């Protein structure tokens, strides 16, 4: 399997604090890798390092076999798309205009012939066609997130990096976004997706990387990583995993007051 994106020994310091600590991670073609972990574990930071937004204090990132920084910005944009968490558009462009902007990297390139088809496909993937002519600034948060997803989908890159693409979406669209991403991966693409919902991670990931305080606590197929003891420790909350009816692990979270699980360093009464 070809490794398309590789982080080696990546560390990031922010204001003297180490938010990522020696992370090694490979993404292979045809693979969907999901990053999970509690708040502040470094998921978004890792994704921004993989995207090239943030230069790691230590370690390197390789894209298609060459150091990420050695690729021209325009070439990077043809190899990987990035969907960030916040997608605020500063002028009232229509949804169609915004999705079309996803095609910008392909200007003066043979693939520009696919522009219209790619925009149509992407608007269908994000289910934004119904409000394609509305200003993106006039949409609800979830609709705006879908427009942003459609824009990154229209970019049609082999590698997709998505930071919490399901955060403000309803159930239908959470699954739709991940299913469309999954389709791309099955067709030979690759994706790194940050998710909070362990159930979604279990359902769509080929591999899950569980981050804890800037390090990878576990990485592997969902069945291996979604271990009750490991999750309970990392999330500091009782978590159970059972076999689901369709073979995917089901994550059960007890509504127990978090205070009943001791924090690290906290004395148990």
């Amino acid at each position, binding site marked *: 399997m070809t490794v398309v994106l590789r982080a080696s020994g990546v560390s990031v310091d922010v204001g003297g604090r180490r938010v990522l600590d020696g992370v090694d991670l490979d993404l292979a073609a045809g693979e969907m890798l999901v990053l999970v972990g509690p708040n502040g574990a470094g998921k978004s930071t890792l994704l921004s390092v993989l*995207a090239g*937004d943030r230069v790691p204090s230590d370690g390197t990132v390789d894209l298609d076999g060459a150091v990420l920084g050695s690729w021209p*910005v*325009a*070439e*990077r*944009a*043809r190899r990987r*798309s*990035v969907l*960030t968490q*916040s*997608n*605020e*558009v*500063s*002028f*009232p*462009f*229509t949804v169609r*205009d*915004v999705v079309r*902007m*996803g095609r*910008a*990297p392909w*200007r003066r390139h043979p693939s520009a012939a696919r522009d219209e088809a790619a925009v149509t496909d992407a608007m269908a993937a994000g289910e934004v066609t119904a409000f394609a*002519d*509305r*200003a993106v*600034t*006039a949409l609800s*948060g979830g609709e705006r997130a879908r427009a942003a997803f459609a*824009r*990154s989908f229209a*970019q049609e890159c082999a590698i997709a990096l998505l930071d919490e693409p399901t955060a403000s979406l309803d159930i239908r669209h959470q699954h739709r976004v991940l299913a469309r991403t999954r389709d791309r991966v099955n067709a030979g693409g690759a994706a790194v997706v940050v998710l909070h919902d362990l159930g979604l991670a279990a359902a769509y990931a080929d591999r899950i990387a569980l981050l804890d305080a800037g390090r990878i606590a576990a990485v592997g197929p969902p069945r291996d990583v979604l271990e009750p003891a490991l999750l309970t420790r990392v999330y500091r909350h009782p978590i159970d995993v059972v076999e689901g009816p369709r073979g995917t692990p089901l994550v059960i979270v007890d509504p127990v007051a978090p205070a009943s699980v001791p924090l690290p360093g906290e004395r148990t009464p």
Partner: protein
Amino acid sequence: MSASLIAPERADPLARGARTGVRVPAVFAGLTAALVVLVVVSAGSGQLSIPPDQVLGAFARAWNDGVRAIGLGILSVAPGAAVEHVNGEATLWLIRVPRLLMAVLVGASLAAAGVVMQGVFRNPLAEPGVIGISSGAAVGASASIVFGLSFLGPLTLPVLAFAGGLIAIVIVYASARADGRTEVVTLVLTGIAVNAVGGAAIALFTYLGSTQQREQIVFWQLGSLNGTRWDDLAVVAPIAAVGITACLFLSGRLDLLALGERQAEHLGVRVERLRVIAIVVIALLTCAAVAFCGIIGFVGLVVPHLMRMVLGPGHRLLLPASAVGGSVLLVAADLVARTAVPGSELPIGMLTALIGGPFFFWLLRRTRRRSGGWG
């Protein structure tokens, strides 16, 4: 979630109409027609009145002379009516035409600078006058007058104006942005600070200057196209041409920048380079406007905003439309300035501020109401 900088446009259905294919040519044709009519009317108006047919006749003869001089006599047109008044031709060519051309160039430059500034600040309230670029440029210009600087010949004043404007915009840009965008309140407060410092420097130069120099400095603060000479145009025209052309090249990338700086970079835009180019272009255009005509405020705010309401926010259309719209506004304002009070001349900067001030206030209120705060 912080609210979007510009909230849902009521003009949304209009923006949709832009795609029907009728609106865009109609807007450009309307603006061009308005500009031509205004130029002809304005050229004929004043203490010495020249009827429109004679103005057109004079333009036609000048055109014929021009095309024959470059060996393209085949393009010549019917000569048209002769100018009857004995001083008509002289008034037209020595006073009114250079002044009109200056209004066209300055209006286009200010409006284009406004569009680029709003795009790069990602804030629809950014404007050269509001955030202090104009006063920075005026500081440079008044310094060159008061100290009688001429180390670059006739270019000294525009170069110093450019330097002053550039310094001001770099200060504002560096201090008003956070996380790749500019909060309205930060932008306005930074503008107040820069304008205060610029005002103090101009006051100092006014204090130091001779009576004649003071008069020149006062002219800037009011803004005027009075006394424009062909020599001035020879300086301003190339700057404006280069600046506006550069804007047109930036327009596609400015669209992407509306998505956010990181997002634009993910789409292949070299954001850092785009910013530097945009800032230099804004300073160039503002300086082209300020160097000879002083502070003519709010053109860069009102015109792009109106055009955005009609054509939508896409910069490929917004930029040329705003440039033409800026020319229309300034030619019209200059016509009013020259003719409203018989025998005297109103400062054009006062007129644009009279329209632009309340407009800015309305925009501020609307932005605040829609985004639920001063974000």
